[in-house]
C-alpha cells in the first residue's frame, strides 16, 4: 500500500460525530511519534484510548528532524545509555516498520577537522554499547560515497538507516485506530481537569471554537517539547529544555549512506540521504519557548561550512529549504549546553513526584526510541490501573510492513508507473497521483494544503509547490472540500508558509526556481489580488515560529 494511506483514520470527524464529551481509559496528549506510539501501544493492550493533538499529527518535533534512524554510534562515547536504546530500537523498528525505513547504512568518518584520537574511543564505545561498527579502508569508503571528502583518514560502517517520520506516525495512527483508538488532531488542550489530586481528563478546544471534555482514567502527557506546558496545566513542574536544531535539504541526494563525523556530537556533523534529498544537520541551541525562535544566518552559514567539510562542493549544491525543530530535552536541573542532556527518556509518575495522581509524563528520548518510550509509559499506565498487560509493539509489524520489505528510493516511481496513463500526476516532483490526493482530502473535514503536504509530500520537491499547489487548490474546491474563498486562503497561506523555509536560502538555481514560482503565482495568476485572500485560516493553528521552514 502507498505510504500514508490510511482509510481508517477520519481525522477530526471522530469527535465531530460524537457528543461534545468523551470517555476513555487512556488519554494521550501529543500527536508526535511518541504520542501516537503510546496510543497504539495502549490500544493494542486493550485500553480504550483517545489521542489529542493541537495541530495535525507530526507537526512538532517529529516532522522536523533529519530522518536519521540512529544506530547508536553517535552516542557511543558520550551517552552510552542512549546508544544502547538506539541500537535496540533500531533492530526492532527494522523488524516492525520496514516500510517506513530505508536501509541506507551509515558511515562515521574522521574528517580533517576532527580529533583523530576520537576514532579509537568511538570503536571502543560501540563495543561497550553493542553498536555494530566495522572499520573499512578509506578507499572503500570513497568508493561507496565518491562525493565524500577525500581527506578523511578513517571510516566505520554502522547500521544507521533513514526513517520517514510522517509515514511512521500515520501508519502507527492507523494501526492504533484499527485497535479502537480515536485520534483527534486539531484538539488543543486548554485545561487539565482534576478531582482533588486526581487528574480526570482534559478540556480541548477545536478549530471551530467548540470545547470538548474528555474524561480519562489515566492521562499521558506526551507533548514533547511542550510537555512542560501541559504539566503546568495539571499543577506539576516539568523542566523541558527545548534544544533548537536547524536542518537544510539539498534538492537531490549527495550521498546514499548516512554520513556522520567521527567526533563528539557537534553542530553540522550528519548528512542524511532521505527520500529524494540530502539533509544536513544540525545545531543545538537552547531556546526558552518551543513556539518562538529564529533561524539565523550564522546557523545557515555554519551548516554550509559543515556540508563543505563532509562533501566538498556542498555550498554549490542547490538548497531546497531550511527548517528547524526543538528537541524535548528533559532535565531536573539546568545544564549550560543542551547537548549535555541525556537523549535517554524518562517516565514521570506525577503521583510519586508531585502528588498528582493518574497523570504521567513521558519525556526526553528521540524519534528512534519512540516505541520503547511508549512501551515504558504504558507499562506504568498498567501499574496505575492495577493490571498487567504486556506490550506487543516490539513484535507486531505496522500495517504495510508485514512483509518486512524496506522502502527504497524507487518505490514511489514503481507505484506510479502502474497507473501512468490512467491517472493525473498532480505533483511531478514527489510523484503524487490524483487519486491519492483525493483520498487524503476526503479523510479530512477541511484540509489545509500544508496538511496535505505532510501527508503526501505534495510540494516538497524542487519546485516547492510551484506546479502542484494551484492544482491541489483547484481540486479541493472542485470536490467541495473547500469553498472558493477557503481555497484562495489555503493557497495564500501555503505560499506564505513555504516562503519562510525558502527565503533564507535563496541563491543559485533555487533562487531561479523561486522566481519562476513567483512568476506563476504573481505574474500569471495574480494571486496577490485574489478577491478574498485574507490571512491564513484560523484552523491552521499549530506550531508557529518566527522564521522556520518545515521538514522536507
Amino acid at each position, binding site marked *: 500500500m502507498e505510504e500514508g494511506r490510511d482509510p481508517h483514520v477520519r481525522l477530526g470527524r471522530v469527535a465531530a460525530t460524537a457528543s461534545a464529551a468523551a470517555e476513555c481509559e487512556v488519554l494521550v496528549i501529543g500527536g508526535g511519534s511518541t504520542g501516537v506510539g503510546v496510543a497504539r501501544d495502549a490500544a493494542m493492550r486493550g485500553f480504550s484510548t483517545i489521542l489529542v493533538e493541537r495541530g495535525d499529527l507530526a507537526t512538532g518535533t517529529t516532522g522536523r528532524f533529519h530522518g536519521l534512524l540512529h544506530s547508536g554510534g553517535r552516542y557511543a562515547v558520550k551517552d552510552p545509555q542512549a546508544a544502547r536504546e538506539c541500537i535496540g530500537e533500531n533492530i526492532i523498528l527494522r523488524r516492525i516498520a520496514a516500510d517506513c525505513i530505508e536501509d541506507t547504512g551509515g558511515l562515521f568518518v574522521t574528517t580533517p577537522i576532527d580529533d583523530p584520537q576520537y576514532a579509537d574511543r568511538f570503536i571502543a564505545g560501540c563495543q561497550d554499547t553493542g553498536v555494530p561498527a566495522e572499520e573499512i579502508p578509506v578507499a572503500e569508503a570513497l568508493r561507496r560515497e565518491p562525493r565524500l571528502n577525500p581527506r578523511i583518514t578513517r571510516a566505520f560502517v554502522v547500521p544507521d538507516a533513514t526513517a520517514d517520520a510522517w509515514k511512521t506516525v500515520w501508519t502507527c495512527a492507523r494501526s492504533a485506530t484499527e485497535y479502537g483508538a480515536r485520534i483527534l488532531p486539531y484538539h488543543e488542550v486548554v485545561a487539565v481537569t482534576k478531582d482533588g489530586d486526581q487528574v480526570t481528563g482534559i478540556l480541548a478546544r477545536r478549530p471551530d471554537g467548540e470545547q470538548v471534555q474528555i474524561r480519562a482514567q489515566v492521562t499521558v502527557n506526551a507533548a514533547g517539547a511542550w510537555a512542560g506546558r501541559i504539566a503546568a496545566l495539571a499543577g506539576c513542574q516539568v523542566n523541558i529544555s527545548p534544544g533548537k536544531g536547524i536542518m537544510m535539504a539539498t534538492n537531490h541526494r549527495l550521498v546514499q549512506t548516512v554520513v556522520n563525523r567521527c567526533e563528539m556530537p557537534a553542530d553540522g556533523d550528519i548528512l542524511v540521504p532521505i527520500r529524494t534529498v540530502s539533509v544536513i544537520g544540525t545545531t543545538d541551541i537552547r531556546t526558552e519557548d518551543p513556539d518562538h525562535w529564529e533561524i539565523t544566518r550564522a546557523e545557515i552559514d555554519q551548516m554550509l561550512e559543515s556540508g563543505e567539510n563532509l562533501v566538498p562542493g556542498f555550498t554549490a549544491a542547490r538548497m531546497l529549504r531550511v527548517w528547524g525543530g526543538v528537541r524535548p530535552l528533559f532535565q531536573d536541573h539546568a545544564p549550560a549546553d543542551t547537548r549535555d542532556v541525556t537523549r535517554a527518556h524518562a517516565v514521570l509518575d506525577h503521583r510519586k513526584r508531585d502528588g498528582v495522581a493518574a497523570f504521567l509524563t513521558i519525556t526526553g528520548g528521540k524519534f528512534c526510541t519512540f516505541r520503547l518510550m511508549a512501551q515504558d509509559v504504558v507499562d506504568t499506565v498498567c501499574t496505575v490501573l492495577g493490571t498487567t498487560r504486556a506490550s506487543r509493539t516490539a513484535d507486531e509489524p505496522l500495517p504495510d510492513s508485514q512483509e518486512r520489505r524496506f522502502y527504497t528510493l524507487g518505490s514511489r516511481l514503481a507505484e506510479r508507473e502502474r497507473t501512468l496513463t490512467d491517472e493525473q500526476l498532480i505533483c511531478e516532483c514527489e510523484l503524487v497521483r490524483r487519486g491519492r490526493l483525493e483520498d487524503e482530502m476526503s479523510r479530512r473535514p477541511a484540509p489545509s494544503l500544508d496538511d496535505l503536504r505532510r501527508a503526501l509530500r505534495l510540494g516538497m520537491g524542487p519546485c516547492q509547490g510551484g506546479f502542484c499547489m*494551484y492544482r491541489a487548490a483547484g*481540486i479541493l474546491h*472542485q470536490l467541495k472540500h473547500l469553498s472558493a474563498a477557503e481555497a484562495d486562503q489555503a493557497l495564500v497561506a501555503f505560499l506564505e508558509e513555504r*516562503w519562510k523555509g525558502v527565503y533564507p536560502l535563496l*541563491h543559485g538555481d533555487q533562487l531561479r526556481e523561486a522566481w519562476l514560482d513567483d512568476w*506563476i503565482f504573481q505574474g500569471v495568476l495574480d494571486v496577490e489580488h*485574489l478577491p478574498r485572500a485574507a490571512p491564513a485560516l484560523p484552523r491552521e493553528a499549530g506550531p508557529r515560529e518566527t522564521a522556520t521552514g518545515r521538514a522536507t
Partner: protein
Amino acid sequence: MNDQLSAPAVDVIVLGAGMAGLVAAVRLAEAGLRVTTVAKGYGSLRLSPATIDILGYRPDPVDSPAQALPDFAAAHPEHPYARISPATLAEAVQWLKEHVGTYAYVGDPDTNMLLPTALGVPRPSAVVPETMAAGDLRSAGPLVIAGIGVLKDFHPALVAENLEAATAARGRAVKARPVLLNPPANGQADVGAMALARRFEDAAFRRAVAAELRAAVAGEEAIGLPAVLGLDQARSVWTELQQATGRPVFEIPTPVPPSVPGMRLARALQDRLRRAGGRFVLGAEAAGPELRHSELVGVRIRAAARVTPRTCRWVVLATGGLSAGGIEVDVSGTASERALGLPVHAPGPGEAGFLPGYLSDHPMETAGLRVDSSLRPVGPDGEPVYENVYAAGAVIGGARPWREKSGDGISLSTGYLAAEAILKEAG
C-alpha cells in the same frame, strides 16, 4: 592574418532569445544588419502568458498605462520605463502587432483590459492576443468557463466563483459558471497544455469540443477556455470554435510552463527572424566580453565545451533577470551579471535581499543592470561600461515585473529601443 584589422564576423550579437532578445534581433535583421542570436535555452517567452502587460499596478490598479507611465517613471528613476518615452512604447506595440504573423494582438497602451487568470482574478493587461480579448471583464456579459477534464492546470469552478466575487467587489458583477468538457483523450487521463493544443489542430477533436460547448452554453454567454486552442493554427482554431458555437470564445492562460500562448509568440518571432536572415545559435552562452584595448570587439561564446571569440560591432544583452539566469546570486548573496560580467545594482552580501513575508517588497527583486538613456549598462560612475553594448529586458534592474504586471511590456519596449539605438549608430 591580422585579426585586429579584420572586419567583425557579424554586426550584432544578441544574447538571449526571450521577448527582448527576439524583438531586438528581428528588428535589426529586418533592417539589414547581420545578426546572430546566441541563447543558452529557448528563452522565457515560452513560459509567458504572452499578454503584453505594460503596467498593471503601481501598486494601485492602473487603468491607463500610457497615462500612468510618466508619473511612474518620475517616481522610479531607475525603472526601465524611465528610459522609455510614450512614443517609443506606442511604436513598439505597433511594431509587435505587425510582426506576429497570424497571431494577432489587440489593445493599446492607453487602456488596460481586465482578463481573468486561471484563479479568476481580473488581471490588468494592455495588449493581448485576440484569442483572449473577449474575456475582458470590463465589458463582459455572462460567462461560461469551460475546463477540460484531462487538463490538470485549469480549474473552471474556482475560476468562475472567484471571478464573480472579484468583479462584484469591483462594482461590476460578471456572472460566470463552470462546465467541464470531456472530449476524447485517447484513453489518457493526463494531457498537458502543449499536447492539448496540438489536438485542437485536429478537426475531429475540435468538432467534439464544439459539440460539447454547444450543449453547455446558454443564452448570451461568452465561453472561456484554457489557452490551449492550437499552436500554429491558433487563429483558425479559435475562429472555428466561435463559428461553431455562435458565441465569443476567449482563452485564459494556464499557469504551469510551458505556456501555449508564449510558445505561439516565440515561434512567430523566431520565424520572422529566420526569414529576415538572422542566425540563431541555441545551447551556447556568453563567457565574457572579447576585448581589444578595453574596447569590446565581440563576445566569447561557450559551446560544445570550448570557448570561441565571436566578433561583432554591437551587443544586445537580453539574457533575462533572476528567473532566466541573466542575473545570478551566489551563496554569499552577491549578485552578478552572467554573460559579460557587468556591474549589477543589488543588495550586497551583508544586506537583506529577501524579507520574511512572501509578498514583501524584497530588495533583491529589483536586482539588475542600470542603464543610460539609450540602454547602455553603466558603472557606478553612471558612464557606459562599453559604448557598444545595449541591455534589454529583465537583465535591466529596477522593476518588479510580476507585481507590477509589466514584464513583457518592459521586454518589448527595451528590445525595441535597443535595436533603435543600434540602427541609429549604424546609420
